[in-house]
């Protein structure tokens, strides 16, 4: 177990290095000089040259990368060109919103997708299964921004149950009740992913229900409810758990859209704005942090897999 964690961590670090090179390289291939964007059209060549030097853009690309990577290792992701504050500060500012949004979204995905998938599976072919499967298909196919806009139209503008945009910190006035600002965005963000988890849970349950060992369990005379929870669901979740790694990746990209639709001060919206401003250090920094998160989450998924399935050997 310990050796496995060490080996996986090593592999994760290599992936991270490769990813950092790709991130750095791609960002610098995007057309548009940040110096011109920052200084505006009226800048003199002297001003441009001075700013270039200050940002280190004169150095060869390889050297720029090494400096950036070296600083990143020490927790310094550079200065935002636009905000003129450290990138880590820019990320930290959006982190509260993004972390809370992601957590609430995962609560919807797990709390809705899995139980409803189980329900659809045990009522296979009945109207409730067909209704739920149809709903899942619909939710999985409509774009997040569309769901977001309609949620705003109905529940914020129409019924007035929830605020339509923005998010004051839970540490400000209002405290935890400020989480109501995140209810509609998290639902919009959860919808397509919960639908996928629902369909996956249902399909996996139906697969497992045909296994010989489920028949053995029934033959023992244990109650149908126990057959479902102890024998079918436990094995069906193996497939679902491994999907969570991918779900996380999907969440990140969809969060960018959702935060924009609901005007949330999260990391996703910061990235979009930074791309428009050619704020290289922020873009690079945020993507690097996301890659790290992704690697950690996939490591956790693999480890939990080992706990759920004794057949998986980690050595």
């Amino acid at each position: 177990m310990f050796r496995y964690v060490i080996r996986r961590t090593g592999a994760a670090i290599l992936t991270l290095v490769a990813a950092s090179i790709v991130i750095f390289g791609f960002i610098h291939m995007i057309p548009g000089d940040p110096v011109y964007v920052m200084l505006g059209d009226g800048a003199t060549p002297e001003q441009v040259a001075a700013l270039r030097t200050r940002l280190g853009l004169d150095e060869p690309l390889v050297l720029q990368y090494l400096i950036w990577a070296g600083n990143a290792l020490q927790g310094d992701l550079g200065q935002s060109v636009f905000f003129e504050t450290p990138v880590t500060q820019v990320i930290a500012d959006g982190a509260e919103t993004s972390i809370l949004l992601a957590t609430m979204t995962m609560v919807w995905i797990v709390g809705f997708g899995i139980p409803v998938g189980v329900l659809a599976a045990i009522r296979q072919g009945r109207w409730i299964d067909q209704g739920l499967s149809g709903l899942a298909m619909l939710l999985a196919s409509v774009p997040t921004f569309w769901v977001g806009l309609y949620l705003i139209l109905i529940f914020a503008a129409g019924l007035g149950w929830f605020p339509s945009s923005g998010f004051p910190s839970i540490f400000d006035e209002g405290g935890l009740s400020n989480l109501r600002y995140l209810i509609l965005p998290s639902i919009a963000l959860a919808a397509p992913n919960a639908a996928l988890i629902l369909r996956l849970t249902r399909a996996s349950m139906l697969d497992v229900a045909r296994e010989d060992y489920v028949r053995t369990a029934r033959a023992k005379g244990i109650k149908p409810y126990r057959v479902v929870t102890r024998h079918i669901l436990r094995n069906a979740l193996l497939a679902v758990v491994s999907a969570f790694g991918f779900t996380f990746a999907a969440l990140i990209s969809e969060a960018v859209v959702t935060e924009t639709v609901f005007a949330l001060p999260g990391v996703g919206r910061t990235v979009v704005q930074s791309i428009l401003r050619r704020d290289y250090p922020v873009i690079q920094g945020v993507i690097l942090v996301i890659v790290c998160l992704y690697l950690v989450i996939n490591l956790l998924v693999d480890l939990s897999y080992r706990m759920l399935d004794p057949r998986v050997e980690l050595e």
Partner: protein
Amino acid sequence: MTAPVLSVSDLVVSAGPKFDIVRGVSFDIAPGEILGLVGESGCGKSMTSLAAMGLLPSGIRVSGGSIQLNGTDIIRLAPHQRVQRGCGRMAMVFQEPMTSLNPVLRIGEQIQEAVRVHDRAASPPARARELLDMVRIPDATHQLRAYPHELSGGMRQRVMIAIALACRPAVLIADEPTTALDVTVQRQVLGLIRELCDSLDMGVLFITHDLGVVAQLADRVAVMYAGGLVETGDVVPLFAAPRHPYTAGLMACLPDPNSDDPMLATIPGSAPRPNEIKQGCPFAPRCSRVDDICRRGAVPITFNDSGQAARCHFPLTCEAPE
């Protein structure tokens, strides 16, 4: 003869309207007796056993007949309903030991689960150890902590038998329990089933397509063809002198080590599908003794002096088998 512990009469199992896959099967099993149910793949033997267990897959249902366990009708009851009504003392061992155990639960948990349902007085861990000892699994305490993938096929089948015994069954159904095992392991498992049947006075329904296994193990034999029984009788006289032409044909197909003929015998043609069976004897198209009467109406059951029953107009007599 003692009262039968399991009594199946006129069992009909259907997979749809006019699609009967088991057609009027009847047999009795006495305590301590092994009944071998023999037939080709697809003849309905597994469906008969699943119907008896109350485990028919969805879409397939019992549409007639009765199944009595110690005099109580248990037909159409799922195993957990039988437990609720206090008549759940029937257990089953399946063909595929590799897939019949839950891969994510320890052996001990899977046995204890059955103990908890059927044997409320027993301490589950102690009873589980006792059951592993009964099926001759060495080092029971250690093996209870093993996962199924850590055991061999033979060991897994022993665990399956232990799970079956956990409900102290009056009847054990074994559906080709040794087909997936090596020959040496096969012998051990067969020996174990015989021994447990004698020591626990269980009735055993042993399903197989292997005549050799039946000859070794069973007390009585029932031969099944195209969803119905064609012949039943005690094992020794039946093997010595089969009365139904199908039984005789099956035996002729066994390789004879003393024969010079390099070719194995076969029965020409193939068994009809359930929807192809019209009236008359389903074996008629392949039978060498067929006559017009065989293709019309129901075929009566005839008995000989030793009580060997055959559903045939022209049963073979003692000297007949070629």
